[in-house]
């Protein structure tokens, strides 16, 4: 038992180093996904026909191709035409392409959840499209957005483990390095599992608290 604790103590710095890379990837992918997802959602709602077409096809495409295949394509694609891309960047880019597709859909659903009566009422007060979005749609949408966002966060965090396949020294691969020298895979994997669990479960719980805080009085059941 004490040998096991000693192993955990010695490997923790390396595992935490891997955790930092995992978190870095997650944050970058979330930023990409939210930014481009928002743009795509706007394109889909307010854009002309070709733009709507493009967004539709993009979403279908990147929601259908497996995450791992996307990573490998982004990793092997650019070098074959002479562009170098690091494993870390390939992983972030590949998962961001996917995250954008899902985020765009989440945003669209969120905007739609704000009823058309709200928009009509805003227009009848003389608000334009921009003001209506900013002061009426957005504040209501943000509350509906949190649950699917929390879900998407957990998916992205877990998916960063796929960067293992490209050789990125994220949490899982750091674990494998340690296992290679200290042969106690179960202990190391359990520590890794605990770290992942804290990151997913802990953060989604926090977002749940935020959601409750933002709840509109009198509206008991949240949509979604």
């Amino acid at each position, binding site marked *: 038992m004490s040998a096991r604790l000693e192993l955990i103590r010695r490997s923790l710095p390396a595992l935490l180093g891997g955790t930092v890379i995992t978190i870095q990837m997650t944050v970058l992918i979330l930023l990409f996904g939210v930014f481009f997802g928002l743009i795509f959602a706007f394109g889909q709602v307010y854009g002309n026909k070709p733009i709507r077409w493009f967004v539709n096809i993009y979403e279908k495409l990147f929601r259908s191709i497996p995450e791992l295949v996307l990573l490998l394509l982004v990793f092997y694609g650019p070098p074959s035409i002479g562009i170098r891309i690091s494993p870390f960047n390939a992983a972030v880019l590949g998962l961001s392409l996917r995250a954008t597709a899902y985020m765009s859909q989440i945003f669209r659903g969120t905007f739609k959840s704000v009823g058309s*009566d*709200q928009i*009509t*009422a*805003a*227009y*009848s*007060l*003389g*608000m*334009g499209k921009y*003001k209506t979005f900013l*002061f*009426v749609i957005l*504040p*209501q949408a943000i*509350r509906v957005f949190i649950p699917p966002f929390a879900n998407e966060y957990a998916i992205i965090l877990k998916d960063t483990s796929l960067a293992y396949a490209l050789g990125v020294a994220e949490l899982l691969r750091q674990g494998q390095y340690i296992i290679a020298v200290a042969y106690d895979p179960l202990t190391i994997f359990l520590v890794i599992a605990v770290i992942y669990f804290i990151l997913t479960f802990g953060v989604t719980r926090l977002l749940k608290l935020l959601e409750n805080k933002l709840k*509109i*009085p*009198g*509206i008991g059941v949240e949509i979604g």
Partner: protein
Amino acid sequence: MEDKNRSLLNIIDLKKSFGDNLVLDGISFSLDTGENKVIIGPSGTGKSTVLNCVNRLVVPDGGEIWLEDTEIISCNNINEIRQEIGYVFQGFGLFHHLTALRNVMLGLIRVKKVPKKEAKEQAIAKLEQVGLLDVLDSYPAQLSGGQKQRVAIARALAMEPKLMLFDEPTSALDPELIGEVLNVMKNLAREGMTMLVVTHEMGFARAVSDEIIFMEKGKIVEKSSPEKMFKQPENPRTREFLFKLDELYGKGGEE
């Protein structure tokens, strides 16, 4: 044409189709300042569509709508025009994420750019006018239907409109809550507000309206003063419809 300068609102030969469904088939009438007209008619006849066109929430296919000297269908400052026209919906349309007070303040702050402190004072005054000083900080979901509708009226009034549109403002309400909304509307009419009201509350129509417009299938069948409309309607269709209303809502004149 010279008519248009005399009236506050002048609607001329308004036409609208949704796909091949002809909803408005040449509607014309006008409203002078301080006047109060009520539109009645069967469901699906185009009453809401008329009001929506006045606010250009629906764009008509033909005709003209003049608000004083501005033609609404072709104007390029619709957001300014909409500030001059208050609109109260059947379904309230209160912003779910804002308290009663904030609902009324929003348009003042964001559209009229009134400073926050003044906006608050004005909003409170309007809420007082509709008898709602006690629910300033309640959210829409915490209010009764009658309270919601009165907040909606206060919100529209806060923009200091020249004209108020009401689309069946009481038909989503429980019977015991209808009175409080109608009273607010009656007071408004007495204070000289120009109002165009779609309603089947004949008591209200009789008490405050200058003219009742009976619409059917996108056309105006008959318009006349309430006395004449109730005592001797010209058109047999009008008679039939009023008879049905009596059955549904009871006789209007008693109140």
